[in-house]
């Protein structure tokens, strides 16, 4: 297989030898008939179609439901590599929760001058309704999906912290399920750490964050905006896997100071609401009054301590791209430790010197909207046309504080199976961390997204990315 020059391939390093975590897989692969594997690949797609994992792509045709392509070559991490990521993520998640508590209380980090006040005061993601509010158990980000990329043998960078409502965990689970069904022999040969405990862990972790007055077995419910939401499948899937109710706003109301759901057994109070509805739509009494997706009064019940909302409203202030560049300071300030995982060097275009640099080096940089997500509204300098660059230059000059810029990283590749055999494609990784008052659980593995187009660096499923099963080895 070719390796893309200048890019670290996780299977082959920078040459032709197979790296240790992939040796067993390579042995197996060498004995396989490529035609059988291609057929298996098609089978996998059929399997996904049956299970119903589809994804609505914004900007495509109306209700364009399509499958996120799945590649059957796993992305494999050695136990030692995972240990680094796990410790680094845990440190980040702890720091972010400490930051959220501080920013909604005494704001020591601003008093200490470690973050300029304007970064918070001018930020729409700072939610005044959370001021003075300590969520049950002190947990703000119950579920975090940290986006990590790799650029070398020992070089990992965190791209985003995704502390609001990270999605994609259902793919992590379904991808493994599919691999187990199609290639059971692989899992007897290689000792891969399971991911199947995620739903149980999620339930345990959310339950541990229930309000103090809840009983031994807190009632948990998943709040979905409904079937038209692009991640509805995941909402239904997680509710099912946890054996909890899947609810919509109109199923819930305030009764006797609690949020209750109507069930066939009558009204039942909810202790923990795993909501997949954005802050703006969560409570028409407090936020957007035209929202049909939320529950009137839920924020009041929350402030009174009668319910846990996961993730807490207002966590966006921690994963905002304007805050991202301060995460190393945040880690240092709250933990006194050096960051274990790298941040990508980031130019804040709000700062005149940075803006000047960015405008001069546009062709080498990736420019992102501070409040954007999903790979929309960004400029990938090396891949951009003259026209795109000119249009971005205008946007940057008109509204510099809306943008940050980062160097284009030489993302690692992992092979995918093509008709011509294995071919390197760029990947990222989103492991999922579950936070409870007593511990942080990180499922070994995560969602590996892969850019299926040759040389493409954009892995987002909304822009033609696919996924892979992610293996973390026992040893």
């Amino acid at each position, binding site marked *: 297989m070719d390796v893309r020059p200048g890019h670290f391939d996780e299977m082959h390093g920078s040459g032709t030898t197979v790296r240790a975590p992939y040796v067993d897989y390579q042995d197996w692969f060498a004995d396989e008939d490529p035609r059988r594997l291609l057929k298996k690949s098609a089978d996998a797609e059929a399997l996904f179609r049956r299970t119903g994992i589809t994804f609505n792509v914004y900007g495509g045709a109306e209700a364009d439901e399509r499958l996120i392509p799945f590649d059957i070559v796993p992305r494999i991490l050695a136990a030692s590599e995972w240990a680094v990521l796990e410790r680094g993520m845990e440190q980040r998640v702890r720091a972010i929760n400490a930051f959220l508590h501080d920013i909604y209380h005494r704001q020591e980090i601003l008093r200490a001058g470690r973050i300029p006040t304007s970064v918070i*005061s001018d930020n729409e993601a700072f939610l005044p309704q959370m001021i003075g*509010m300590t969520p049950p158990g002190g947990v703000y980000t119950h579920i975090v999906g940290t986006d990590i990329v790799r650029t070398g043998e020992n070089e990992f960078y965190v791209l985003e912290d995704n502390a609001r409502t990270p999605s994609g965990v259902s793919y992590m689970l379904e991808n493994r399920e599919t691999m187990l069904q199609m290639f059971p022999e692989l899992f007897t040969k290689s000792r891969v750490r399971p991911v199947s405990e995620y739903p149980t862990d999620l339930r345990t972790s959310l339950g541990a964050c229930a309000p103090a007055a809840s009983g031994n077995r807190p009632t948990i419910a998943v709040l979905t905006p409904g079937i038209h939401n692009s991640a509805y499948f995941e909402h239904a899937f997680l509710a099912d896997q946890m054996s909890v109710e899947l609810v919509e706003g109109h199923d819930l109301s305030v009764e006797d100071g609690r949020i209750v759901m109507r069930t066939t057994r009558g009204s039942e109070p909810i202790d923990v609401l795993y909501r997949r509805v954005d802050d703006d739509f969560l409570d*028409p*009494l407090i936020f957007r009054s035209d929202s049909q997706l939320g529950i009137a009064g839920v924020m*009041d019940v929350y402030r*009174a301590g*009668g319910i846990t909302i996961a993730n807490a409203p207002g966590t966006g202030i921690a994963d905002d791209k304007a805050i991202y560049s301060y995460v190393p300071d945040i880690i240092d300030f709250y933990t006194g430790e050096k960051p274990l995982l790298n941040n990508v060097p980031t130019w804040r275009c709000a700062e005149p010197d940075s803006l000047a640099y960015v405008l001069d080096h546009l062709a080498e940089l990736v420019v992102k909207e501070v409040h954007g997500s999903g790979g929309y509204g960004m400029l990938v300098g090396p891949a951009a046309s003259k026209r795109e660059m000119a249009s971005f230059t205008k946007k940057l000059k008109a509204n510099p504080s809306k943008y940050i810029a980062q160097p284009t990283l030489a993302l690692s590749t992992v092979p995918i199976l093509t008709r011509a055999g294995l071919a390197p494609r760029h990947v990222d990784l989103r492991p999922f961390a579950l936070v409870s008052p007593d511990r942080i659980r990180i499922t070994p593995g995560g969602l590996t997204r892969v850019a299926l187009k040759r040389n493409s660096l954009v892995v987002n499923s909304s822009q033609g990315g696919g996924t892979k099963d992610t293996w973390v080895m026992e040893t």
Partner: protein
Amino acid sequence: MRLVISHSTTYTYSTPVRHGLQELRLRPVSGPCQSVLAWDTEIVGATHQLLFDDEYGNRVELIRLTAGATETVVTARGEVETEDVGGVISSHSGHAPIWLFQRSTPRTAAGTGIRELCRDLAEADDEVTLLHGLSAAIGERVDYVPGQSDVETTAEDALVAGAGVCQDHAHVFIAAARHLGYPARYVSGYLLLGSSEQQDASHAWAEVWLEGLGWVGFDVSNGISPDGRYVRIATGLDYRAAAPIKGLRYGSGEEALHVELEVRAEWESGQQQQRSR
């Protein structure tokens, strides 16, 4: 000064209520210029749900309208001992950062009128004088005319219309103060009037944060800073955040609002109480 207050708000619905919630900000809290001696709220046609503190430190009660009700009555009554602090509350309490009060809201956004008002303001030797000048200018420009504005009226609208009530005066003042760079907040409360004891609405004024001094109150409608006749109930960025009653009702039909408010001074018993202490 000991003030005895009785404040009842009646909503009458043309069709029975299906479902609805109301947040009540009707519980004054003890602070630098007042001690709440006794306070209670009573509700008819709704049930009590919660009592909590909001992000500004206001005591909030959530009530749920009773399905089928055609009327809700909320009565707040109690006694508050006030102290004349010359409108100055030196300390800031709670976790809401001072910079938050520089954020403009839809009701307090500065338009052309408010920018002009600020530009034409007479120069002053100190900030307090400057702000009293602002208050006087607003009083001259916006006549006190009940019924000309409603809860949605913006500061800019009220200034252009040249008419409004205390709420509009407060909004114009807040919008202008923030435009001048001062953190400012809305205060809802009660005021002892000399003339008649019966009032048809609660009162509102504004407070501005001045470095070195603290929160300083300005009652545009009366052209003064609050004294011992004022009781503070709730504060916030604007009316919407501090409103005595704010709610949401599902179902069709109109609603009518009727307020009865009595604020009186308990001179004698207050003095007796002091003697007996």
